[in-house]
């Protein structure tokens, strides 16, 4: 019996070595493993073996069966993998299907980037109407009627009462009318000025205003917060300066400049050779604004700021003509997939 086992094993080893395709493998399978094959025949002969030899012979038989079966598996895998590489070759350099991924407008992305920074500083996000009343747009913000300060913002009027808002600042009045301090809000939105359309100006653009009102808010805090914003948005290596300015709704008022990021402060055409870029206007909320919303300026103080989005995007993305933002040429829109 043992000789038979050995001889079948040897013949299987010899025959299986030459098998290279599925057909030969099948012939081999039939010879050894099928119902009438050599291995089942051996197994059925086990019953004729002397009782005392059965365990040892049985063990040998099992080993042979396992060996043959695992060899089959190996040969089959070898044949399969060989077959797939030889049968069909794919040119993987062929182009892929085009999948469209859309884009947010670069103005949206710039606004989101700015609002996200202020959100982490605890600011809420508020919107207001684009048609405003003279009261919200000017009067409540301490623009006296017939004051030349109104000339600072060329206005589109609808009638004596209504106009297209010239800034997003009126939203601060709307918030403070409804909500007691602390008020910490940023106000993104579209604004309008009656200005001729050119490469640097448009009758519609976007702004983000911000305000923080509470007890004991100071100019030093205004500086700290806006510096933190500017470093996060423009880079931690920027230098900054706050210079005196004028807005009717803040007192003291300031403009914030940062070192020109085009020329790194060396002086270039963009910064008019000053090395500085004006990035936002700001100041301490004027007591007259507090009076418009019935807050006591001796109890509360606050700071406010505002910035133009198009101007920032022009500078940051090296765009030279503001009109392109509103032309909606997809060749422009697709240049700015979601950035951040």
């Amino acid at each position: 019996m043992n000789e038979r086992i050995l001889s079948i094993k040897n013949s299987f080893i010899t025959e299986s070595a030459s098998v290279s395709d599925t057909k030969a493998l099948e012939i081999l399978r039939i010879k050894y493993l099928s119902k009438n094959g050599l291995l089942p025949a051996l197994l059925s002969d086990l019953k004729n073996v002397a009782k005392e030899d059965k365990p040892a012979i049985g063990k040998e038989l099992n080993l042979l069966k396992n060996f043959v079966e695992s060899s089959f598996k190996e040969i089959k895998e070898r044949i399969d993998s060989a077959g797939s590489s030889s049968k069909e070759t794919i040119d993987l350099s062929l182009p892929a299907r085009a999948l469209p991924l859309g884009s947010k407008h670069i103005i949206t992305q710039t606004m989101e980037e700015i609002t996200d920074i202020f959100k982490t500083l605890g600011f809420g996000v508020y919107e207001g109407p684009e048609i405003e009343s003279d009261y919200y747009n000017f009067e409540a913000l301490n623009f006296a009627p017939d004051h030349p300060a109104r000339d600072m913002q060329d206005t589109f009027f609808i009638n004596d009462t209504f106009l297209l808002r010239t800034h997003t600042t009126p939203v601060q009045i709307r918030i403070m009318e409804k909500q007691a301090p602390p008020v910490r809000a940023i106000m993104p939105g579209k604004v309008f000025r009656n200005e001729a359309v050119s490469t640097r100006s448009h009758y519609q653009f976007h702004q983000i205003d911000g305000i923080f009102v509470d007890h004991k808010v100071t100019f030093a805090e205004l500086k700290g917060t806006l510096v933190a914003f500017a470093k996060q948005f423009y880079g931690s290596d920027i230098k900054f300066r706050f210079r005196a300015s004028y807005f009717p709704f803040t007192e003291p008022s300031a403009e914030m400049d940062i070192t020109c990021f085009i020329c790194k402060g060396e002086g270039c055409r963009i910064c008019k050779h000053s090395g500085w870029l004006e990035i936002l206007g700001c100041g301490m909320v004027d007591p007259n604004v507090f009076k418009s919303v019935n807050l006591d300026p001796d109890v509360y103080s606050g700071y406010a700021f505002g910035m133009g989005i198009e101007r920032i995007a022009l500078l940051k993305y090296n765009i030279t003509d503001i009109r392109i933002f509103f032309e909606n040429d997809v060749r422009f829109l697709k240049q700015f997939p979601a950035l951040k």
Partner: protein
Amino acid sequence: MKISLNWLKEYVDLTGISFGEIETTLTMCGLEVESFENQNEIYKGFVVAKVVEAGRHPNADKLTLCKVFDGKETLQIICGAPNVAANQKVVLGKMGAVVPQNNFKLSKAKIRGVESFGMLCSEAELMISNDHSGIMVLSEDSVEGTPITEALKLNDIIFEVGITPNRPDALSHTGVARDLAAIFDRELNLPSFPTLSNSNAASSIFSIEIKNPELAPRYSAKIVQNVTVKDSPDWLKDKIKAVGLRPINNVVDVTNFILMELGQPLHAFDMTHLSGSKIIVRKAGSTESFITLDSKERKIDPETLLICDGIKPVAIAGIMGGENSEVTEITKNILIESAYFNPSSIRKSSKMLGLSTDSSYRFERGCNPSITLEAAERAAELIASLTGGTVVEGHIDIYPEKISEPQITLRLSQVERILGYSIETDKIEKILTSLGFSITEKKEDKFIVNSPLFRPDCEREIDLIEEIARIYGYGFIPPVERIAISLEKKNDDTILASRLRNIFVGLGFNEAYGNTLLSEKTAALYGKPITMLNPQSIELSRLRTSLIPGAIEMTAKNINVSEKNLRLFEIGSVFNLVNPKPATFSDFTEDKKALFLITGEANQEEWLTKPRKFDFFDIKSILNLIVSNFLLDNFVSYSYYSTQNNLFDLSCELTVQKDGKTHPIGFGGSISKNVLKEYGINQEVYCFELSLSELKSVQRPFPKFKDLLRFPKIQKDFAFIFDDKVKYSEINDFIKKSSSELLKEISLFDLYKNESMGSGKRSLAFNLVYYDFNRTLKDEEIDADFFGLIEKIKSNFNAVLRGN
């Protein structure tokens, strides 16, 4: 406003302070230097030279071949000017110099075959005047080689300073000098004013009456007799030119000089044309016509303040004088007006007339009522000395109600409360006094401060705090580098728009920003547009009533540049009138909308992909996606119309029922061919506009987790031949209605038409999915449901089951 550095230095000693430091200081204290002209730079390379020889150019009749000595060497120069001659002293632009007029950099040039090593300049080329008739010829005693910055005193720096509307005091050289003196801690040297005389000589020959003192609180005047009107001397002309004005004569130039020095507008009348020897200041009262100095006829509004003589108007108060009383070469006696007018009255009149002058610009911002008389005295004295005239002793000064300086209590604690930084009391006192404020009372914790009348912007404590911070320097207040966050719930109005944006971007849409302003014609197509009072043009006179027209326009533009396959979206506000005359916010609507638009091919032809054009069903797919993201399906209803309206050939509406209310979420469809034709578009365009506020009102709460299905799904298919008239939606509803709740999904997987079915018939093939969340279904119960359904469909629709 143009500020001359040389002129400034007459009032404040700026020795030892660099030009750059002055520029930065002005900018930092709120007087922003927008640009500057440094004459030392501009005139670099221009020197006095002598024409040694002037001969004919060998190849050109109109050119002169000159030998010019520049103090060191003799150069060959070709000159085209007709007036060039030997022995003239002229201005030579050397090689490397840049001609101010055209920024042309001089270099060696060959002119008609002859070399030239520089250029002889005209006044126009040097931008000294408009004279371009010939080269500038200097006086004989000019020394060759002297830079013209020295020889012609072209060594000034002219700052263009942007003055904010709150700072009328800085619209003058003394005003700017005051800020610099305060910051650099130097003395301010104001011009000395002649001592006022008590003589009544002037008032005895001329009288002034103010009928509207509320509009003209003060009117002062001086008289100068026997003047000779002629050109001003160079020093005055130079000053006038330095600040960008045109020299006129030795009377007008003095009034302009005082304006630029003190900020007080003056006007000189020719007294012979003032009838009745008097001035009456009054409102026009009725609409009048008046010819101003610039020879233009102006319509005067009844509310406008006029300066009149005994019988007629002679000037529009604070804005411009009249032609009828203008100072001319034959003028002998003049009356100098120096007044203070009500700012808002001047502003209204100036707006009404559409005329803004140096005078009105200052009056409407607020002049200094306390300086009128001194300014008139100073002007009179100067005019007399330049014209050879005599100042009539005394003055006329009508000032019925003296304006007093505002008194402000400055609580010292407030300075630190607002600035977050403590500034020493001594420093505060010094800043305020150096700016012209007087501290009338000093207490431990507060100052009583009188604010000078030349600072109309300083009326309150906060205004003083700003002045202190401004002069102290914002840069010296250290930023607080921390932030206290209050922990209340944070609002975000932009969430819904952000969610929609994310969906659209994921679907391959590009976000657009359209124009809010539209033409009347376009806006009226889509709603009831709001009209603007002062549009830039009729094309931009209405507010958009819908985002659709803007989207069609941008589609047309893109197609024009061969971008024909578009997926665009926009989120923005639209406006519609409710009441034709809006008086309150409820008389119009302002709604935020989201629009999406598709046109061209959904898939372009590629080796792997068959091309497919966008169609109506793409609109439905996107809507379904938005609906499944935002809404509960069972409330939603769509309506589809294939009938035409003005806008759409195929249209649909999306409404949602919630709490018994119907919410119109949006509408859209395929844009009508007629509309597209107007934009030159000849491909199908589909779009849909959603209302954000409606969407928000039916928004579902954020979903909760539902257990996953643990039991098998059973799928069944059937196909029926239906009559064409039977709508899919009817069949779909019927299947739902006629099945047990075990039927969970219905999908149409084939639609087929064939002649063999007979005309007007179509085959619809459905796949049905049955399951239960709590158990495995038995074949028998599904068979009962499914075969029962087949019979019901057969009989209800008279449909024929296919495939058996």
